[in-house]
């Protein structure tokens, strides 16, 4: 197979990355970053990692991009961007970064042969779970504790963001997500897209059990729809003191934990599943996780409360 498309993609990614770092304007930089994210999704597909590609597109490029764009808008134009550092410092940094890159490149160019892999082991045990997508199996069975703790990370990040609320506003709602120029097309999209998006999201979650797709991707699509609705000013962000909101946030981790502890009784230990029930349990956990992720991502983008509680 020709290397040309890969080479072109690689060049594009690097050019976009250089642009992202070197752009004078903050907004240009963010756009550059979103472009890198999209290109990276393509790269991930070329690396035969479709699940990662979906996650990168949804979370890495999409949600992060949205977050950064909003920050740009809030920051205003007058930040001191171009403080010029000494040339010697720049050269030194350049040299050091190059040394790191050269070391990494050497390792990449002269890898260990044969490549060590866990793929055969992972494949060998797939049958015990009954799911078709190996990545989902790794995420929710083999290395479920990683996934569980990462959900805790998300909840903690949300608490960390909320912690920045000024005291009098605690419990209130985050500021409006409305785009600066609320336009007709956006409103239209916000009215039309969500049903479609929700279907796609649910499909991704359900599908994730056996084919590429899964919790994050589905959850992110759900979150995106919600954010769209909020940005079009059709709905305000909810108050952070709402019990429903809080419970939706913890739903995923709690279901995951319950499933984990259930393993003590119905299988052989924490986070283990009985072979015949594995698939339904995992799908249930995934659904709960996706819902929580959608809420958490949405609230993370929305930021700390900016209005006093009503």
């Amino acid at each position, binding site marked *: 197979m020709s290397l040309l498309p890969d080479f072109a993609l690689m060049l594009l990614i690097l050019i976009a990355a250089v642009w992202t770092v070197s752009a004078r304007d903050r907004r240009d930089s963010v756009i550059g970053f979103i472009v890198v994210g999209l290109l990276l999704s393509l790269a991930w597909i070329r690396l035969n990692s479709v699940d990662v590609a979906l996650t990168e597109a949804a979370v890495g490029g999409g949600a992060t991009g949205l977050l950064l764009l909003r920050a740009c808008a809030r920051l205003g134009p007058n930040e001191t961007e171009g403080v010029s550092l000494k040339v010697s410092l720049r050269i030194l940094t350049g040299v050091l970064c190059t040394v790191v890159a050269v*070391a*990494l490149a*050497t*390792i990449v160019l*002269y*890898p*260990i042969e044969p*490549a*060590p*892999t*866990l793929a055969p*082991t*992972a494949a060998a*045990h797939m049958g015990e779970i009954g799911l078709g997508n190996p990545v989902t199996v790794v995420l929710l*069975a*083999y*290395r*479920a*504790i*990683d996934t569980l*703790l*990462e959900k*805790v*990370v998300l*909840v*903690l*990040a949300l*608490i*960390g963001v*909320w*912690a*920045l*609320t*000024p*005291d009098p506003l*605690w*419990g209130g709602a985050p500021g409006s997500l409305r785009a600066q120029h609320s336009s007709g097309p956006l409103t239209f999209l916000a009215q039309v897209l969500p049903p479609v998006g929700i279907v796609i999201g649910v499909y991704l979650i359900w599908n994730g059990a056996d084919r590429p797709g899964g919790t994050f991707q589905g959850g992110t699509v759900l979150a995106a729809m919600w954010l769209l609705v909020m940005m079009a000013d059709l709905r305000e962000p909810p108050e952070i*003191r709402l*019990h429903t909101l*809080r*419970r939706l*946030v*913890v739903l995923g*981790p*709690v279901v995951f*934990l319950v499933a*984990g502890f259930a*393993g*003590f009784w119905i*299988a*052989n*230990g*924490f*986070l*283990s*599943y009985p072979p015949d029930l594995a698939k339904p349990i995992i799908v249930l956990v995934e659904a709960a996780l996706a819902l929580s992720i959608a809420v958490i991502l949405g609230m993370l983008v929305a930021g700390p409360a900016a209005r006093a509680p009503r």
Partner: protein
Amino acid sequence: MTPAAYTATEGGALLVVAIVLPVIGMLAIFALGLRRAERIAYLVLPVGLLVALAIAADVARSGAAVTYVLGGWQPPLGIALRADGLSVTLMVLTAVVLCAVGLVARGSFSTPPDKAEARSPMVFWTLILGLWCALNTVFLSQDLFNLFVALELLTFSAVPLVCLDGRRETLQAALRYLLFALIGSVLYLMGAALLYGAYGTLDLAGLRLLARNDLATSVALGLMIAGLMAKAALFPLHLWLPPAHAGAPAAASAVLSALVVKAPFFIILRLWFDVAPQPANAMAAQMLAWLGIASILFCSVMALRQARLKLMIAYSTVAQLGYLFLMFPLVMASDAPTAWESVGWTGGVLQLVSHALAKASMFLAAGLIAEALGHDRIENLDGAMSVVPISVAAFGLAGLSLMGLPPSGGFVAKLMLLTAATETANWWIAAAILLGGILAASYVFRVLNRAMAAPASDFACKASIPLYRELTVLGLAICAVVLGFVPLQPFAFLGIGRVGLP
């Protein structure tokens, strides 16, 4: 070559509880939005302590590590938890410090009775529990990627604690902390990626068997150690620590200084002794020790020159962390059959433990002094002795440990390190240990001198401190002192589970 399998031991499920219990408490506080968030924390803290003690008892009784294989999936595919003598010691330490901090924090982080839920109590208690989960995971996990997640958990819990009061300086400190910690994380993760590419496993025991001495391994370990040092704030990577630890509320500072910076160090220890190809590299060990020496001397002088009590204690943390990094060449050059049977290893671990107790006590005492006086300028501490005598006494006792004067854990630790340095003829290290002790004494006495002076005529006490808070702080300091009565030789307990790693 397949690594030997982990066998789950009886009672291994307790390891899961140790990790998950704080998470449950945290989620409960978050979800229930209760009138008094701290109540749930008070339920979780003692139970967590009991769990840690139970695991310690189990390890002590069986004389072997307690192991649990999550989901029954053997590493390298799955992840194993393993509590050896060292990790159990640190778990108990963590539980003790957190319980004490919890008691003292009651005064500062109780929900006011007229509010449904207040910001700072809710955030403080959830994050403290989050921290606990992260620390226990760091101590127990046997998988480098899982350790990465735990480190992130730690960062996300620690950063918002720094800026709990929302002032500009603390926000700035928190942002610096977060960004620098993130560089550290990425470097660590990069190393993990290289190791996976080279060995196809991130399991510690597996890597120990496979580790070769090649470029990928060297680069990976270099990146990981540097990244972890950034998170541990070893000089000269301490840019974030003084403002962050000084800016946080005292209860949070206590946890940050006593425990949080120890977690990355613990992972360096694991990498060095459990992963790096043996025999370990002499030059890299010397480099670590030199950074430690620089840390001790430079930051002790900085501590001596601070005007603010909490900043002084924060710089002292960086200096005391330096002692931990001295152990690498000392252990290497020792003629003990294994690392953990050498005096240097025991001294280093003891320094970790006694510094944690002493520093927690010191920060809490500083917090109470600041509460009582309304400020923490060292020059104006006159009269502190008459208002909060027990806190000043706790500060002094904790100071003993930092100075390395007997009787205290710090003394035994530094004595062991000094002995190891003498035995291995590392004279520079010996000199740094001694000089560091003198500098530490100088900054501690500087504070005590002021605090014990007679109060000025217009002296006014800003707040009265309940006795139980002062006594808790004193209790921690006494723990640090009591550690001074351990025998001066390597402890068998710290070697449990390390002999014949799987």
